[in-house]
């Protein structure tokens, strides 16, 4: 089963590498943020698949942190700019 899990992780890794194109060329910052979000989700998938392959069950906590911080990054990104420089 382990080589199969690793090949699925390899496919997801190729997806991350392809998403890098959109992060690099994306015309607007929103596109970049979306691609970064997809990279994060694919990274969660890769980590979940690597945990049984490498026999390190603690990796699932890393996936939990990934999923928590994806929301933080997007929320920080979409906050409005303060127009008056009062603060």
């Amino acid at each position, binding site marked *: 089963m382990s*080589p199969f899990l690793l090949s699925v992780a390899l496919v997801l*890794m190729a997806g*991350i590498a392809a998403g890098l194109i959109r992060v690099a060329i994306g015309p607007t910052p929103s596109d970049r943020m979306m*691609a970064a979000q997809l990279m994060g989700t694919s990274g969660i998938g890769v*980590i979940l698949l690597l945990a049984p392959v490498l026999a390190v069950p603690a990796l699932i906590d*890393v996936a939990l942190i990934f999923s928590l911080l994806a929301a933080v990054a997007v929320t920080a*990104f979409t906050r409005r700019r303060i127009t008056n*420089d009062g603060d």
Partner: protein
Amino acid sequence: MNALLTVFDLLLTLTLLGLALVTVTSREPRRAVILFIAFGLLLALVWARLRAPDLALAEAAIGAGLSGALMLAAARRASGRRTSPAEGSDAEDAP
């Protein structure tokens, strides 16, 4: 199994290097910050691959999450301070 793992490592390293290169050479601050967040995610993936879940936790939480959010706020303030229209934030991706 080992060959697959080698291919995986190679792909991960090449992606990381390419991302680092794009991050360092990007001129616009917010673009660099978003690329930095993606870089932190991939670096956490590298630590996970090296069987170091504690380092991966720290990298994902501090490197990608918190400092990414802080730097996004800083980049927004920095682009808000600019006065000349030539470098305003509307010219995001000026060549």
